[in-house]
């Protein structure tokens, strides 16, 4: 029960002493109940609060109504009470400070923090952004195109003639119900991001520098290194006087930016219908550093060759320019290079993941690791 100020009827010295003593004792007792900063505040307010505090009440109930002859003694008693209470409150404040400091100081700051989890960007998306960033810093803009494409953009305009064996290499997924349409208008799922080269050249005149991220599909049953859905990044640069040396130099620079300045690049002749000359780019294996070995064991990612295949590229085939000639792409006056790489595969290699399927399952135990 909190202390309440009684009214005084007896102003004898003994009565005053008794009342004063009771008041101070009550304050002392209440001070021991202060356990927190909140308690301290309400304690103070209760005793020395201006409007309704005990001291105010003592003043109003004991001093003011005191008879003339007892006023002096009552006044002295009230001052004593006031001082004593101020002292008790002061001590209580100090004790509180000590206790709370001690509480803080007794905290073991080496204990681990309790963390609110932050999500992780998907490793394939992360790799894609990194690659795009490298090319943006070379002045490349970002473009994109539809996943559901026509035969024209996916094959014909990229120099795959109708009924040509080269089309077989693409394992295309087709949209149903297209038989009635002429072949070039039939819908399919794009097998590479290269169609966007044509779409961009139709909209923009040379010179251009673009990089094209996107989802592509193939009729590949899913396993550790295949998925029917995966991601590619395409690049295209067309201008007057772009040479094969520029293709090599640009990609060599990009590979160093992505994998470190000590990687070397190696270009090997290859074949794509939309580039001539065509090449495959290899970089020094970033797992074994190019030696082909990891300790005494063979290096599996590079199949012991010390090189990893990263992308296909080449000079844009003049036949491709013919499809966009009306927009300023005369193969006799402009030249350009193009490249395309599989992002999921690069992410597998970069992060040392051995099964492509992990990327598409959504298992948080896997995804969390990329934070």
């Amino acid at each position: 029960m909190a202390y309440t100020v009684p009214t005084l009827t007896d102003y004898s010295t003994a009565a005053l002493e008794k009342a004063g003593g009771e008041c101070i004792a009550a304050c002392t007792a209440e001070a021991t109940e202060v356990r927190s900063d909140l308690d301290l505040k309400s304690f103070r307010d209760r005793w020395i609060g201006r409007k309704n505090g005990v001291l105010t009440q003592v003043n109003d109930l004991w001093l003011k109504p005191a008879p003339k002859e007892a006023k002096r003694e009552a006044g002295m008693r009230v001052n004593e009470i006031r001082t004593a209470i101020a002292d008790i409150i002061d001590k209580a404040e100090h004790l509180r400070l000590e206790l709370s400091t001690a509480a803080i100081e007794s905290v073991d700051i080496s204990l681990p923090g309790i963390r609110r989890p932050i999500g992780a960007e998907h490793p394939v998306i992360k790799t894609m952004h990194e690659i795009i960033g490298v090319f943006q810093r070379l002045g490349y803009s970002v473009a994109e195109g539809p996943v559901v494409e026509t035969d024209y953009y996916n094959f014909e305009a990229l120099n795959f003639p109708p009924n040509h064996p080269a089309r077989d290499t693409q394992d295309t997924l087709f949209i149903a119900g297209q038989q009635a349409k002429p072949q070039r208008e039939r819908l399919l799922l794009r097998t590479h991001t290269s169609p966007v080269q044509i779409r961009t050249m139709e909209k923009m005149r040379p010179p251009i520098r673009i990089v094209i991220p996107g989802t592509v599909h193939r009729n590949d049953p899913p396993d550790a290194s295949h998925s029917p859905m995966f991601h590619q990044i395409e690049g295209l640069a067309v201008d007057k006087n772009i040479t094969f040396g520029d293709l090599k130099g640009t990609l060599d620079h990009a590979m160093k930016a992505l994998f470190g300045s000590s990687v070397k690049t190696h270009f090997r002749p290859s074949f794509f219908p939309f580039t001539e000359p065509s090449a495959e780019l290899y970089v020094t294996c970033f797992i074994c550093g190019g030696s082909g070995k990891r300790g005494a064991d063979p290096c599996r990612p590079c199949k012991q060759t010390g090189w990893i295949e990263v992308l296909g590229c080449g000079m844009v085939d003049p036949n491709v320019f013919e499809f966009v000639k009306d927009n300023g792409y005369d193969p006799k006056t402009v030249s350009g290079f193009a490249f395309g790489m599989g992002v999921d595969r690069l992410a597998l290699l970069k992060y040392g993941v051995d099964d492509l399927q992990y990327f598409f399952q959504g298992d948080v135990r896997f995804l969390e690791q990329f934070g």
Partner: protein
Amino acid sequence: MKLSPQWIRDYVDLTVDNHRLAEELTNVGISVEGISGAGADTVFEMEIGTNRPDAMNHYGVAREAAAIYGSALKQLSALSHQPPVKDNRPFPITVEEPALCPRFSARVVRDTRIKPSPEKIARRLQLLDQRPISNAVDATNYVLWEIGKPTHVFDADLLEGGQIIVRKARAGETLKTLDGVARKLTTEDLVVCDAKKPVGLAGVMGGYDTMITEKTRNIVIETAWWDPEIVRKMSRRHALHTDASHRFERGADFESTVISCDLVAQMILDSGGGELAGDVVDVSSKRMDQAPVILHVSEVRRILGEGLDAGLISRILKRLGFELIPEGQGDAQFRVQIPSWRLDVEREIDVIEEIARLHGYDKFPNTLPAYSGAVVELPHAKIDTTLRQRALALGYNEGLSLTFISHGDTERFSSGTQVLELENPLSEEASVMRTSLVPGMLDMLAWNLNRDVPAARLFEIGSVYELSGGERVEPWRACLGATLAAVRASLPVDGLLDVSKGERAASAELFRAFKGDVENLLEPFAREISFDREAAEYDRRGCA
């Protein structure tokens, strides 16, 4: 495709070992993916592009090796030591479809014996995983792998009327092919026939009834140049993909028909005896000479860069078998004759690629082109970045789900738009392009729950696919998903779930927590966010 380096060395003298040879062939684009075996039994596992059928055989690869090292390539010849031919009645050959068969060559061997092939031949074939059958059949197989020309041998006595006619099949005709399968022919099929019936599917496979047996004494050896498109169509129509059709589809060498017959004849005579009956019969209706290409040195420099002079260009091309004649003034341009085996080289740019690859791609210096254009981002790039950052900060991991869903999924998750169905899907579960990110998200959440991972929070940003007014559209979407355990774990401590109020209240609290995440995510984009229970029955996410 397997090739034997020992066999390659029959045609070109090489001082390098097999490993070095493999590396240098790969560096000019004739890729050796693997090496197995040792010594004379070494095998190269080759990866040769569809554009280089001329290199899908030992002589073709030897030609490349000769070009790399500047060595002499041995000329192929046969039958130079044969006794003079008797019986000068040429075997009758009629080609009724000259457009589809511009060249047909044949040789006849009489009085020969069928027996197993000599050891050396059999071993070479086995090294390439080819099964030896008899000297005559093996000879055709050997020459196929030698110079890349498919040939066929008939038992001459089983050809009714003693003649060959090349024509389209007639309605109702059938042919039992060498694999024992009886095939119905259509009038689109091009067939090799005797006087009465078809005896071979042109460029694809010979007939069963006229094949070589141990009784055979007289053999007709034939080869031809077939139109690649018709061979491809027949191969598709009859689902017959053979070594022969593979090569004819990609373009065979017009000039090698006679030498192929000669080489096969030589091998049969060497192993089985007998004699040549008459000269080679060579029926050709047109020349297939490739048009010469005018090569400008300035164009070589424009594409490849500086550093290649006319002398170097000329040396490289000559080594490859291209004939060059300088034209005009100085060393500015050449008239280049394309060899008959290189059907993939037709234009100036194709010749330029030959120069680059033989010179060595790595020899070209790396340069960076200058550019001073503006860098443009994708229109939704900023939205993507903001969405992603906020979702990550709210503790959601980024997932990527497959773009296919099932028909059942489309009924539950599309907004009544037309779907895009696949013609050749991988499975029924994956037969339609996704119309919503939700089924994929539910699959991913379920994956976690099924593996005792109760707390999972995921987001995905990607396209969905539908037909809108007949036009295909690919709207960009974001999807947020969380399991109950994850939401519970993410509640702030002071707002602890008061389970004492009952399960209904607890669920309401959990939903509010998730709803709070959605509001947080959408805040930068939407002025007003409303949640509509009617629009989505499967969950309580709504529309902004």
